[in-house]
């Protein structure tokens, strides 16, 4: 079956090694890893304690003193721009008793003051004042060592801020690697994007990986969103989103680009308005521009839990179609409950009228009320509920589509590309990275 690891691997309490129950190269993924608290405990440390996680975008904290409260992995952070304009990410927790120091969703501050005993910090994290300082003896309060706890590494790409709690993690640029080439197409195509409004946030009784798995899945659309086919808002063709490529740039990052069927030039130029399409040549290489010109849809996952969805839809049965860029993230709360984040991004140069159309299209179709999105949550919850019991956990899920598919030889971008955007090549790559992060395949000593 699987090659015997030569180094210690990660074994669960019943003796099974992770690579014995998760076999992406065979398209077989254990149901157990989605709902088992033992696996979740390992994920806390090895994925959420070590990976790179999205926290927010430059445009959400444009001014000195601006802050937003977010998560880095599963830990609460303050993403804040200090008086000098430098961005920091701190554990949202006072050094004294651990209380949250930022307690609103966004703010503009010179200082963060903990309500508990009054410790206060500058917006660059330095401890300014503790409580009742005259009662501390010599050496009992070393303020220089008591600034807010920063993430171990902070990085940004295309205005997207990421953090990791692992000082030994590869730097962000190295971690994103070839994914950056594709992020340039999505986030840099017209010179940059900005976030519109606050994120929509909601909670779903799902194992986080059922949601994650869905964001690289094209062929669920015809069945899961069939109500929109019935209403004439999606093509009545099960293969409509199959014309494209799935791409594996490495480190578990995955994406796809979809165009229309031959002769259908509707799904082009990422669906953007003519004035925005014209800017591609200014900001993209000829190869990147070619991809942007030739495709309408794209979805990408920056491993493990941050995604883009570049989509085209009508907002209702009477509306014209419009494109929008949706950013998504799943933050697990427990093995079977997950917090969902959804942001709407728009090209910085977009006109106010265009933004309004993009917003109305997005808010009616995606997010918690979206006539597409709401049915996905039903799927994830029922996938979760059906796989909690001890019997279900013995079985695998089926991820074999395209297991033997030849790679494309004419794809102009980096990474491994597969023709046909229906397949489970990208999911399998995601689970390969999951095994690596979890210390399987002889990486057991890593943690």
């Amino acid at each position, binding site marked *: 079956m699987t090659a015997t690891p030569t180094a210690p691997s990660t074994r669960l309490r019943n003796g099974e090694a992770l690579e014995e129950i998760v076999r992406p190269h065979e398209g077989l993924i254990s149901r157990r890893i989605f709902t088992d608290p033992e696996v979740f405990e390992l994920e806390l440390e090895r994925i959420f304690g070590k990976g790179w996680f999205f926290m927010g975008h430059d445009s959400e904290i444009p001014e000195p003193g601006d802050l937003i409260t977010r998560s880095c992995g599963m830990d609460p952070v303050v993403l804040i721009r200090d008086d000098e304009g430098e961005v920091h990410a701190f554990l949202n927790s006072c050094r004294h008793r651990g209380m949250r120091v930022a307690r609103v*969703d966004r703010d503009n501050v010179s200082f963060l003051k903990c309500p508990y005993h009054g410790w206060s910090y500058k917006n660059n994290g330095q401890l300014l004042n503790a409580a009742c300082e005259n009662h501390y003896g010599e050496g009992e309060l070393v303020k220089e060592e008591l600034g807010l706890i920063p993430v171990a590494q902070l990085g940004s790409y295309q205005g997207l801020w990421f953090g990791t709690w692992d000082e030994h993690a590869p730097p962000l640029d190295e971690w994103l690697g070839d994914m950056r080439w594709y992020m340039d197409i999505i986030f840099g195509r017209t010179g940059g994007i900005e976030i519109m*409004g606050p994120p929509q*946030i*909601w*909670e*779903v009784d799902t194992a986080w990986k059922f949601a994650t798995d869905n964001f690289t899945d094209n062929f669920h659309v015809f069945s899961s969103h*069939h109500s929109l086919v019935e209403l004439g808002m999606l093509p009545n063709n099960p293969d409509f989103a199959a014309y494209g490529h799935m791409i594996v740039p490495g480190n578990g990052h995955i994406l796809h680009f979809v165009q229309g069927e031959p002769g259908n030039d509707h799904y082009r130029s990422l669906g953007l308005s003519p004035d925005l399409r014209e800017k591609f040549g200014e900001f993209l290489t000829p190869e990147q521009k070619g991809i942007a010109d030739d495709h309408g849809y794209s979805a990408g996952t920056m491993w493990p839990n941050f995604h883009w969805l570049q989509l085209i839809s009508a907002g209702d049965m009477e509306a014209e179609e419009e494109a929008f860029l949706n950013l998504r993230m799943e933050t697990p709360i427990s093995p079977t409950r997950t917090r969902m984040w959804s942001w709407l991004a728009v090209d910085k140069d977009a006109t106010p009228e265009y933004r309004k159309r993009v917003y*109305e299209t997005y808010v009616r179709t995606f997010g918690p*009320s979206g*006539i597409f999105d709401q049915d996905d949550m039903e799927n994830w919850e029922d996938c979760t509920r059906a796989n909690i019991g001890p019997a279900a956990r013995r079985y695998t899920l089926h991820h074999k589509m395209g297991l033997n598919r030849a790679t494309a030889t004419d794809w102009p971008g980096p990474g491994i590309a597969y023709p046909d955007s229906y397949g489970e090549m990208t999911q399998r790559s995601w689970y390969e990275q999951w095994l690596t992060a979890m210390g399987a395949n002889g990486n057991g000593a890593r943690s």
Partner: protein
Amino acid sequence: MSQLETAGTPVLPHTELYGRVLDFLHREAEMLDTYKFDAWLSLFTDDIDYQMPVRTTRFLTEGDGFEEFGLMSENRASLTTRVRRLETEFAWAEVPPSRTRHFVSNVIVEQEGEELEVRMSFIVTRTRQDLDYQMYTGQRVDRFVPDGDSFKISRRRILADQTVITATNLSVLF
């Protein structure tokens, strides 16, 4: 009385007008709870403006936290699309359907010319399949315009109490 905020002329609970508004609200709630979605649509004017803003946690000095950005932003065409979708066999979030209970209370009615502003607290409970209850609460601010001896709703603001919706999705109607 001077401490009470009034946008228009208060319509007091013992009046016939107040009674008609309350009856309208109760019948609307019953329509939603008994899946009479087409009838429900007929309660809105053609230019209905139906908004449910995202709420964020802010300090009181910064306002009430309702953002310009929505959880829902609907007009007649999009509300109609939502209802038509529920009538397909494939709207999985509501197939099989949720069981909802729409409660309204603390109803305040104020008259501004021909129109009424109707503010109320709401609780919507939802259970589906064999699952436990989920709940949505908040204030609804409606604009009623006269329609014969009844009303139509021309504007609705659904002001949720939650900043993080903890009830899976917003597949139910408010």
